[in-house]
């Protein structure tokens, strides 16, 4: 019995673990703000959404599968929320039955499992009926299959049969077992056999008494003997208790899985409603398998920022056929980081099957998503700032595989422009050569500039600043503002006659581009 709202039957094995860099992703992309809105006040929904969003999908088919389920959820909000609350109530009720009981005692465990099973079965019956009513308005494969499965597996007849057995497992006439002699002459076996019924006929009763048998009777106040006897009864029904409690656990596992998968969609609904209420645009993105399909977006904005200020934000647009490396340069506080975060959020949300905060969004499916943002100096850190930056970058290099997308924000800026740019180029070139995709926010214009005309076909964006200094928070296609005028000035001052060795030395140091 599988739920299959997050994965199509049989594809679950492809799900991933929480990525190693989830803490960085959360911090750099301001994800907690998003999770909080998704959660409402429900910490369980928070946890599920956090987990599901961070465990990015890498196959297009599953992304589309979830998009379809989510579209159904948006059109049937009442059903989704009712299913969720029915499950939550049942689990709460079942927990009440459990918490004071000592689970190591099979007699208690058996009784506990029986009562817990009854609660779960009642909840499943309720879900079965609401699902049956909603079935005509459900269109996604995920939802239709789930509801049909519940209707089939938990039909009335079956639930009635199981309930009957639950009643008869109280052993009203005592416990009968078969045994043998084992190691050290211990009593072994304790195999439960069909219990005695009181013989009806006199002749049978006599035969019964006549069989040779011996009885051991406890003294009235023999407490130890009482415990020993309880222990023997416990041993006799241990296997029975395991069978029944395992059944209860299996049903619970199904209920838990159902709760978890529904909770994700409950979170999505909360975010959807919240964004719609402030008038923000949302849309379902178009994920692409082809790494050459480029990156396009219209009206993209930072979800977390909009949620914080309860206002729609300035949206940015781009159609880039080539997105191996995108440099974002330009004015300070001009919206560079905001755009980087917006794209990062959209990429993550797309890869967990959600809608995105944009009028449209399309890009390739990254094999993994990493962020490397400049950090404020951490007082607890023993390492120097540059050391710290490099160690994080090194960890990223250790983890990524071909086809990852990396979001850099002012990386290498804790050293000076020249060294930082040189080192950054080496790293970027190696990453690009290995088929990574990079979006790089930097105020090192000369770093971006050095890629003009590069074989990697970079896309350049620049945060706009008007003549009078006003920032529009639009980040548009524009080459970085040139900086390498040093050699020009040199030539201008010294003329062409200057000795060549001197120029070459400067050129090799990376300070001035060689002629």
């Amino acid at each position, binding site marked *: 019995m599988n739920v299959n709202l997050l994965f199509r039957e049989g594809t679950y094995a492809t799900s991933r673990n929480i990525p190693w860099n989830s803490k960085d992703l959360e911090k750099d992309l301001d994800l907690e703000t998003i999770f909080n809105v998704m959660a409402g006040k429900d910490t369980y929904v928070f946890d599920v959404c956090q987990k599901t969003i961070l465990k990015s999908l890498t196959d297009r088919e599953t992304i589309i599968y979830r998009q379809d389920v989510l579209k159904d959820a948006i059109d049937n909000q009442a059903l989704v929320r009712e299913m969720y609350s029915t499950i939550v109530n049942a689990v709460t009720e079942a927990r009440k039955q459990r918490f004071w009981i000592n689970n190591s005692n099979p007699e208690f465990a058996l009784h506990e499992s029986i009562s817990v099973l009854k609660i779960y079965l009642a909840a499943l019956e309720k879900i079965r009926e609401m699902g049956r009513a909603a079935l005509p308005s459900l269109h996604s494969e995920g939802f239709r299959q789930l509801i049909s499965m519940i209707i089939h597996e938990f039909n009335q007849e*079956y639930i009635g049969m*199981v309930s009957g*057995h639950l009643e008869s497992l109280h052993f009203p006439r*005592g*416990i*009968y*077992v*078969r*045994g*043998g*002699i*084992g*190691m*050290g*002459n*211990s*009593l072994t*076996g304790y*195999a*439960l*056999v*069909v219990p005695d019924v009181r013989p009806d006929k006199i002749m049978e009763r006599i035969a019964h008494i006549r*069989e*040779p*048998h*011996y*009885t*051991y*009777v*406890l003294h009235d106040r023999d407490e130890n*003997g009482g*415990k*020993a*006897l309880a222990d*023997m009864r416990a*041993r006799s029904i241990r*296997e*029975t208790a395991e*069978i*029944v409690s*395992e*059944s209860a656990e*299996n*049903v619970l596992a199904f209920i838990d899985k159902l709760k978890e998968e529904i909770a994700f969609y409950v979170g999505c609904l909360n975010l959807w409603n919240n964004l719609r209420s402030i008038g923000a645009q949302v849309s379902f993105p178009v994920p692409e398998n082809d790494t050459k399909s480029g990156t396009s977006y219209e009206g993209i904005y930072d979800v977390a920022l909009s949620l914080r200020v309860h206002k729609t934000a300035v949206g940015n647009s781009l159609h880039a056929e080539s997105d191996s490396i995108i440099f974002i340069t330009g004015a300070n506080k001009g919206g560079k980081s905001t755009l980087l975060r917006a794209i990062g959020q959209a990429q993550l949300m797309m890869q967990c099957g959600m809608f995105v905060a944009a009028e449209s969004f399309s890009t390739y499916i990254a094999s993994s998503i990493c962020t490397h943002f400049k950090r404020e100096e951490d007082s607890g850190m023993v390492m120097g700032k*540059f050391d710290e930056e*490099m*160690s994080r970058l*090194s960890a990223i*290099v*250790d983890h*990524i*595989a*071909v086809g990852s997308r990396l979001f850099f924000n002012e990386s290498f800026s804790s050293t000076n422009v020249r060294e930082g740019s040189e*080192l950054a180029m*080496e790293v970027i070139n*190696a*990453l690009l*050569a*290995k088929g*990574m995709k990079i979006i790089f926010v930097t105020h090192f214009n000369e770093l971006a500039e050095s890629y003009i005309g590069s074989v990697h076909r970079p896309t350049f964006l620049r945060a706009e600043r008007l003549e009078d200094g006003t920032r529009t928070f639009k980040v548009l296609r524009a080459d970085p503002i040139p900086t390498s005028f040093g050699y020009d000035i040199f030539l201008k001052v010294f003329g062409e006659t200057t000795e060549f060795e001197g120029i070459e030395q400067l050129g090799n140091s990376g300070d001035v581009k060689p002629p």
Partner: protein
Amino acid sequence: MVFNSILWPERQATNRREEYPDFFVDLNIDQIINGITAAYGEYNLRPIFETLPKSIDAVRYRQEVFRDLQNPDTVVFLKDFSTRMKNVYRRLSGIEGLYKYQKQGWLLDAALLYFEAVTDLAEKLRHADLRSKGLRSFRDYIQAYVDSSNFREASEEGTQVKASLSAVRYEMSIGSSRVTVRKDRGRENYNEIVREAFGKFGANQKQAGKIKRFNDPSMNNVEVSVLALIARLFPEEFGALVSFYDNHQGFIDLVVAQIYRELQFYISYLEYISPLRKMGLEFCIPEIGTGRGIYCLQSFDLALAYKLSTSGSKVIANDFELSGDESTIVVTGPNNGGKTTFARSFGQAFFFAALGLPIPGKEAKMFLVDNIYTHFEKSEDLENLRGKLEDDLVEMRKILDSATERSIIIINEMLSSTTSKDAIQIGRRIIELIRKKNSICVYVTFLDEFAKIHEVVSMVSQVDPSAPEIRTFKVMRSDPNGLAYARAIAEKYGLTYEKIWGKIKE
């Protein structure tokens, strides 16, 4: 001569010390012995590992056994025998306090296991290709024992008694204050019926095999009383048990018990080094004599190797050799370059060789040491430097007073509490004194000057010449080089084009 040991060719007065010598801790030998004996607590093996044989004969007696144990089949059946013997003792432990039929049942089960273990061992020994005096004598002893009529008769009787007890079947009904037993009436298994009913819930069916049958052989007081009732239902079966018990209480042979313990000395060591061998590290049985001129190829620190094996890291092995007139090795080189590790592996090689054990290395020649002395820098009490220097020198003096030409002295960074100039002067004198004693000495130091002393063998922990920040942990004969070792930050994190290229997975 009566056979009674696979450790000692003849009775030897033991010279075990009351407390560990310093070198146990300094060379991490205590760690190694703890590791070896960790799972063998009940055999009290520590005294064996702490007693160095005085005669070469004893060392060779053990080396021969280890040579026989190079055949894995032999190790397998000796381990199997040990496991069974362990269980025999486990079954016998604490039975005195038990109720009649229970106690007798345990003795019977222990005896059956013992008979079987010894019979199988005799059979295995008969077919094994044994060369060592120790194991051959053991084989002859066991064969005679198993062939004796006492042994054969006891074994047959026990088997019969057990068979009839095992055939007993009864039915027990358990109420809230009474238990009734009768002979089994063959009723249907109720759990199968319940399982069938709940089968539809999914994983039940395949979980069925997982549920353990209740098998704990301890009994509560009600069960003990019920056992007495069962004995009344089956009088013949239980009568035979009583008579077996009365006739066979002391069924374990004393020599068998003794050899069983001594085998653990061999087995525990082989077990300890087995994961290292699987990693490709080599062990050898060294040629052992009295002459100088010693060497070991591919030696390594056993304690470190064991630690690294758990994390899967690579172990670096080193060679050492001292020809006839060489006696002092001075080890210099960068910090954390493997100097101390080298010194430890050197000392360990002599220690384990003297115990008759295979030592880390591919091939080796050792002599039998009379003692190992170590002087390792302790990091604590740096406040009183003057006092510390004095303590160090007093300690050194003691070592020099008792060391002989069959001793090993290992010194690790001794004179760091004084100025270089003083240290060089004092150190030279000490090396001179050791050379006069003609003890074998390994001296680890950061002072290159010592390595330049005439007739001293200089060994240096090596660095990769093209990348001086990388330690190779190789220690080789060469002149001291006094290099400086800087590292670049980006290099350190592997953030160069080539390294990134190499690291990223396709």
